[in-house]
């Protein structure tokens, strides 16, 4: 039995918690414990749904083989997992959606960065061949390759830091959530050509995430602009 995937999941959870802790120190209005529970619940629901969809697409009946659900290594459908996690997070934050999601998003992006960086525990960082100085090879091989998962982790970590800053400086409701979704899609879309795969993956899903995230951020800016205009006091007579 291999437990390397658990180590990768643990590094993702550490990234998430570190992000929430740091954010909570800067913004005392955030309830870190609630956001942590929302994030973990959404992740578990997303993982289960992604696994079920991967099983069905692979021809395995989840009702006939319920035990196969725990074999996460055999495949999780990324698009289904992401959609289920987003719906769950949206439902759990329904009382104060954008305030909580904006607080959660930078830490969630850092958690995804941690998950990608967890490739170091799984010996699963490498992608397509490359002769760049930082490329490395599998044990016993002379073919050096892009450490593609570390590229994704780096991109997401930088993005998470930028979102942290944005959340504190310009808290328009929904802006950080939208940009975070777009960033997550962008990180996958940009690194996908460097990942080895058996067939062309659901690249358009990543494009859709960028479009939806950008639309959400634009709508948030528009709403913020409108409310500023509305709250401007009328000129004195």
């Amino acid at each position, binding site marked *: *039995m*291999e437990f390397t995937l658990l180590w990768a999941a643990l590094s993702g959870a550490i990234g998430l918690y570190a992000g929430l802790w740091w954010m909570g120190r800067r913004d005392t209005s955030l309830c870190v414990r609630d956001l942590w529970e929302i994030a973990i619940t959404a992740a578990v629901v997303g993982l289960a749904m992604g696994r079920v969809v991967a099983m069905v697409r692979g*021809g395995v009946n989840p*009702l006939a*083989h319920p035990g196969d659900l725990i074999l996460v*290594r055999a495949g999780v459908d990324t698009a289904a997992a992401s959609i289920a996690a987003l719906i769950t997070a949206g439902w759990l934050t329904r009382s104060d959606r954008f305030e909580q999601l904006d607080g959660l998003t930078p830490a969630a992006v850092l958690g995804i960065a941690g998950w990608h960086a967890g490739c170091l525990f799984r010996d*699963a960082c490498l992608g397509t061949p490359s002769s760049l100085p930082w490329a490395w090879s599998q044990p016993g091989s002379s073919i050096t390759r892009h450490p593609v998962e570390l590229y994704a982790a780096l991109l997401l970590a930088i993005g998470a830091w930028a979102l942290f800053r944005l959340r504190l400086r310009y808290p328009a409701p929904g802006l950080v959530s939208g940009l975070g979704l777009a960033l997550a899609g962008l990180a996958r879309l940009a690194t996908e050509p460097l990942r080895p795969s058996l067939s062309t993956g659901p690249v358009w899903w990543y494009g859709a995430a960028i479009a939806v995230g950008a639309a959400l951020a634009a709508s948030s800016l528009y709403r913020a602009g409108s409310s500023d205009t509305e709250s401007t006091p009328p000129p004195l007579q």
Partner: protein
Amino acid sequence: MRRIIVTLIVALGVAGCSSGGEVGDVAPLPETSPEAIQQLLTASEQPVVLNVWASWCVPCRSEAPLLRAAHESFGDEVQFIGLDVRDDQDSARAFLNEFDLDGFEHFFDPSGAVQGSLGRGGVPLTMFYAPGGDLVDLHFGVIDERALALNIDEILRRVP
């Protein structure tokens, strides 16, 4: 809520009991020997992916769709071989039929002697060979898409 949980449990139980074992038109698997497998690997002009599996192995069921997808994508350039160990013919044929995995060659190793000769135990196990039979890499346990694709790329680059 309780009613939903009970219904789900009953549905899972019924579905689990009714999962049949149809062998379809899958032919019986030919029995092989350590010498025959070694000769096959040595004589192969293509790189080889050798997957050791068994119908009773739950993780093997989970990686079966990936192997089918890999064979569909790389079957022209890479030789895929299945080695069914410590199994019975009917269960093995039903497994291949269920996952539509009979697109490539599978051998029967009821005693596990062939796997023993390859020097590794346990299922599932996936071995990647360069043309001529040099072992490039082996993967214990369930293989994921990334590892499968990466190792196939490695052995394809060893083709002279």
